[in-house]
């Protein structure tokens, strides 16, 4: 019999019951909750007079609607009354049901996919869900983690389980060493460019190979975060020493004898050598260059040295029409060099790229330089209150402020513009977030997805440049 993939192992370890109709009950170790996708789930519990199955498996935090300024005012500082009600509703629900919440003024507050790993609430081998598609982030720790809808949030609250169908296994192997200035973000954008936004639909993707295991946990989280942009709900990386070193002393991590027991289990969380994948995709890491998205789908990416493609050269009529529509929305012409795209704003943040390493990479690029006068705004939004504190201890805030970038309080911010941070109509933004969909960062806004180092380089020049030219061969 063939060996098991990491996904097979995680599935088997969480299988409560295999039903005759092909569906299965899967146990959920951790549910993360935020204010946008939970209110209707709590209301559903109340209407059906149900109680949460297991309180300690849940952890809540407001992140999507929170302002990134004036945070000492707490909930009162949320100017938009509709946003405020949503955050207050989360507070009320957590208080009523007895669920642990890092409220808006708690230093541990932050983006839900940043705080889970930061607290050790995300541990290797867990099954983790959240009403947010970027829950795939947690797969970087060898977890079975994916986004769910609000009905399923309610289902997990009430039963600690989900009804699932087993997905297929895909291995994306990136071998070779990444060049200087090439980050996890560039790797994942290159993968999405290769397999397309639906390439992973129906699959759980394991990211493997030398280039992936050479990355820090931050880099791995960036890659798993965007597996949903390749269509895969689940993205994973096998556990190695880097994983264990990252989690072992976190506040929610086990201690003493329990820790030793956990670590020996965590070491088993990798695909067996003879495991069989339904699909394997291979990339040469050493050939990946810094990436920039030019269109309205994350698969519409180019090397920074490239040009905007010409739809006329696309054979597939549906794809061609999509490109024409994207270029019209973006206000861009075919064959324009990527480096000639003029920018209005720069956003460094989001659950994809707001961790300490991301901020260090960006700071290294802007240090001693000034933001281009042609920009309306360049902002840095740390992923959590603790990331913010650490960055300030390292002096990164001063580097950003001296260069002319804004230094904000933690939250989802301009990634999806549910708070006050948004693009104006027609504005181009170099953004470290995950989606370049029409209107995502604001009505009529135009998003270009890049790494933190590339966003920082663009902030200095007011247009895209190859960050490697600003680095003298050093790694950012």
């Amino acid at each position, binding site marked *: 019999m063939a060996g098991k993939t990491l996904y097979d192992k995680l599935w088997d370890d969480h299988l*409560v*019951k295999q039903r005759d*109709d*092909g*569906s299965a*009950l899967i*146990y959920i*170790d951790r549910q993360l909750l935020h204010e*946008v*996708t939970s*209110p*209707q789930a709590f*209301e559903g519990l109340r209407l*059906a007079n149900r109680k949460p199955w297991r309180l*300690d498996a849940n952890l809540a935090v407001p992140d*999507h*609607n929170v302002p990134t300024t004036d945070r000492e005012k707490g909930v009162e500082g949320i100017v938009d009354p*509709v946003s405020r*009600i949503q955050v207050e*509703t989360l507070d009320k629900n957590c208080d009523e049901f007895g669920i642990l919440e890092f409220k808006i003024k708690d230093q541990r507050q932050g983006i839900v996919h940043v705080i889970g790993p930061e607290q050790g*609430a995300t*541990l290797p*081998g*867990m099954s983790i869900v959240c*009403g947010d*598609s970027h829950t795939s982030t947690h797969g970087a720790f060898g977890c079975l983690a*994916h*986004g*769910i*809808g*609000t*009905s*399923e949030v*309610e*289902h997990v609250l009430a*039963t*600690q*389980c989900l*009804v699932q169908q087993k997905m297929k296994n895909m291995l994306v192997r990136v071998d070779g060493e990444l060049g200087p200035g090439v980050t996890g973000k560039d790797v994942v954008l290159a993968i999405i460019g290769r397999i397309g*936004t*639906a390439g992973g*639909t129906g699959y759980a993707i394991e990211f493997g190979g030398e280039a992936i295991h050479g990355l820090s946990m931050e880099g791995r989280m960036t890659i798993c975060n965007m597996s*949903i942009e390749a*269509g895969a709900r689940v993205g994973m990386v096998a556990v190695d020493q880097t994983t264990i070193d990252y989690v072992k002393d976190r506040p*929610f991590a*086990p201690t003493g004898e*329990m820790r030793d027991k956990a670590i020996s289990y965590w070491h088993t969380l990798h695909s067996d050598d003879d495991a069989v994948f339904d699909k394997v995709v291979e990339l040469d890491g050493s050939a990946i260059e810094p990436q920039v998205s030019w269109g309205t*789908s994350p698969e519409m990416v180019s090397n920074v040295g490239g040009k905007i493609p010409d739809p006329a050269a696309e054979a597939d009529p*549906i*794809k061609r*029409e999509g490109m024409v*529509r994207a270029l019209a929305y973006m206000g861009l012409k075919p064959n324009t060099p990527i480096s000639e795209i003029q920018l209005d704003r720069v956003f460094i943040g989001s659950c994809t790229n707001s961790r300490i390493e991301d901020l260090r990479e960006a700071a290294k690029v802007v240090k001693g330089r000034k933001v281009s006068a042609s920009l309306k705004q360049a902002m840095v939004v740390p992923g959590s209150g603790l990331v913010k504190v650490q960055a300030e201890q390292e002096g990164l805030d001063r580097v950003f402020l001296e260069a002319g970038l804004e230094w904000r309080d933690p939250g989802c911010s301009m990634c*999806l513009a*549910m708070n006050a941070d948004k693009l104006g109509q027609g504005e181009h933004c170099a953004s470290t977030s995950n*989606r370049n*969909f*029409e*209107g*995502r960062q604001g*009505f009529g806004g135009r998003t270009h997805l890049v790494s933190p180092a590339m966003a920082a380089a663009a902030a200095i020049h007011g247009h895209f440049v190859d960050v490697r030219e600003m680095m003298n061969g050093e790694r950012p």
Partner: protein
Amino acid sequence: MRALTQHTGIVAPLDRSNVDTDMIIPKQFLKSIKRTGFGPNLFDELRYLDEGQPDQDSSQRPINSDFVLNQDRYKAASILLTRSNFGCGSSREHAPWALEDFGFRVIIAPSFADIFYNNCFKNGLLPVVLDEEIVDQLFSEVENQPGYELAVDLEANTVTTPSGEVFEFDTDDFRRHCLLNGLDDIGVTLEDADAIRAYEESRRKTAPWLFSS
């Protein structure tokens, strides 16, 4: 949840692939704490010329008359015909809530994004996967025949055209069973409460750290 067994209705063609859930219902409407009332803001950025706001009376807004759902012949549509990877992106269940609130019961496409597909079944909305060539054929039939209707039968797993042509589709047994009967799947899962407790008991022994926080 509203059950769905058979449904016959007007078909609206939305001829684009990779329609994401941000497009189905933009972020500003996600601030609601209710499950209902999203219909007027379905496809908001395609449907109207201005930027919509929550709690606004959408009947007073300037509409994009080119958009399919603003055309008289499609205003009463309850079946949406569209292209591949429909519902990609954000997991927001507000997307099926908005489609259902507008009056859609069935969505036909060559493929759907996983999370969206799953969310539909929780809301009395049936996503039907048909081959690309069949979808192409349906697009041209809809275009050429005002008042074009399809008959969808979940009991038989079929879609029937006005000329009597029948196409079969697949749905997995559990989702189909719940949708046919309008079942609350939490209730179904709780019938297995003993199995869940037994799992917890055994997992607590092998991985005790998962139960100590």
